[in-house]
């Protein structure tokens, strides 16, 4: 399956990004769910959209998918405006919704066949068979949706997003409440789709998943994008590594206490910009008569960066509110 077949005949659209969002705003009552967001996701990317609950991720996805209307701004999928050219935009997009929803009247195969029909997919039987097999749904194909476990229903949701072979696939927390087996099956399949040229947009609360899968990540908070970069650059953006030490003897000197980001009992963590800072930090500890019991050098991970970025944003927001 190739993602490169054009959605429409217009060759000018071939150069357009997979998703392009300009000045997108949405308010629900007093809540500013999206605050004039700009975002471009290029074709073929595996893109992560991260943020705490209520950050605006699902609202952003809903507007791109045409499920919600924006108050202001423009959203395009493969160059097609989601309002003015909604039919082409929707054909180019497959969405796995966050909620575990299903139609209780139908079997797995019927569900997938109807969804393919809705998108006008012709001769879809072979592809539906492939989707069923790839998602390990073969022995459940003729089972009613009601009789499936949560994990199985999640697989069908993924299948429904893929039946019309969209070049852009959005997965809104697809592994929430899903066992390890399904996660591995799912990611293997999604990676294959990405390798075939499909653009993947993923929102997840499992940051290790985002770190291992996504080439680029946007972090959202309070309806804004607060960080946007390549995943590796994002991880290296703040500091390159952490030094964790367990001490006995004298208490931590004041100069070092201010640099410490975490202290639990006698274990302290120091963020370092360069490896060379290890020696100077240890020298400071020795000078303060601290005896080293254990020492560990840790690479920062996405979770740590995420927490840091959200904390910084919260502080800035609090300052702004004063």
């Amino acid at each position, binding site marked *: 399956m190739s993602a490169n077949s054009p959605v429409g005949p217009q060759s000018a659209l071939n150069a357009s990004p997979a998703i392009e969002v300009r000045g997108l705003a949405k308010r629900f009552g007093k809540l500013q769910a999206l605050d004039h967001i700009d975002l471009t996701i290029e074709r073929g990317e595996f893109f992560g959209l991260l943020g705490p609950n209520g950050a605006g991720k699902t609202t952003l996805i809903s507007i791109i*998918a*045409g*499920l*919600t*209307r924006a108050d202001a701004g423009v959203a395009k999928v493969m160059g097609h405006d989601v309002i003015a050219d*909604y*039919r*082409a*935009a*929707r*054909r180019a*997009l497959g*969405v796995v*919704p966050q*909620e575990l*929803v*299903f*139609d*209780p*009247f*139908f079997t797995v195969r*019927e569900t997938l066949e*109807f*969804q*393919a*029909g*809705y*998108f*006008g997919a*012709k001769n879809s039987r072979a592809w539906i068979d492939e989707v069923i097999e790839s998602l390990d749904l073969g022995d459940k194909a003729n089972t009613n949706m009601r009789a499936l476990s949560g994990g199985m229903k999640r697989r069908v949701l993924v299948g*429904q997003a893929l039946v019309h072979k969209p070049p852009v696939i959005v997965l809104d927390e697809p592994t929430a409440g899903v066992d390890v087996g399904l996660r591995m099956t799912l990611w293997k399949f999604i990676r294959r789709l990405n390798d075939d040229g499909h653009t993947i947009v993923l929102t997840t609360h499992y940051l290790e998943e985002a770190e291992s899968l996504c080439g680029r990540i946007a972090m959202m908070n309070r309806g804004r994008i607060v960080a946007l970069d390549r995943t590796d650059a994002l991880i290296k953006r703040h500091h390159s590594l952490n030094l964790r030490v367990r001490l006995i003897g004298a208490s931590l000197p004041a100069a070092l206490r201010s640099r410490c980001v975490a202290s639990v009992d006698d274990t302290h963590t120091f963020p370092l910009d360069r490896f060379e800072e290890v020696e100077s930090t240890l020298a400071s500890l020795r000078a303060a008569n601290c005896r080293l019991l254990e020492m560990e050098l840790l690479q920062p991970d996405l979770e740590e960066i995420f927490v840091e970025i959200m904390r910084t944003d919260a502080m800035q927001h609090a300052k702004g509110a004063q």
Partner: protein
Amino acid sequence: MSGFRALARKELLRFSRVSMQTVFAPVVTTLLYLVVFAHVLESRVQMYPGVSYRVFLVPGLVMMAILQNAFANSSSSLVQSKMTGNIVFVLLPPFSHVEFFCAYVFASMVRGLTVGVGVLIATSPLVELNVAHPLWALAFAICGSAVLGSLGVLAGIWAEKIDQLSAFQNFVVVPATFLSGVFYSINSLSPVWRDVSLANPFFFMIDGFRYSFFGQSDVAPTTSIVAVLAALFTLSAIALMLLHKGYRMRP
């Protein structure tokens, strides 16, 4: 068009999967109306000359069943989908508003007409009924079911929970059908209530449908069909406008 076909097929399969509830139960309920009302009023009431009350009742009951079930199909499908969240499956695809609307209305018409035919078959051992004008019968059955299918789409767009839909059904659809001349001729009413009945579009569907059986009616069938088509046009236009705006469907 392929989107319309798939959505209409899904809607048809949806109600046929629970045909006991969506087809057979309304047929039995309507049959009970006939048995009870005919038993009580047969010897006391005659609406049209040469037509017994039992026979007079049947076309009205058939049309009432068509209308109520056409309404129930589109409205309950949309509201149930909204409540369970699976409405997303029909909001994500690239349906045009017309395709979306027509698929729901078409399935409603099929259910309404299926129940109507079921009522006719079920009442046939009890009542000998001849169709004087089959084409008029077909026209009123098709247009009437389309009007209520459209009203069902409107109710489905508006209602966000079963309670709201139930209110719409019990305070709008049921009174409008019961007070539309199913059980009587509006000529038997006082002038005031007769005029009020003439403002009820349901009356024209019942009266026109009855004309097609007996060749007699309270108003001319051409007047009735114009009124029914006007109702269909108005409701369809409102539903399509709301779908275009995304009212309560794409907030």
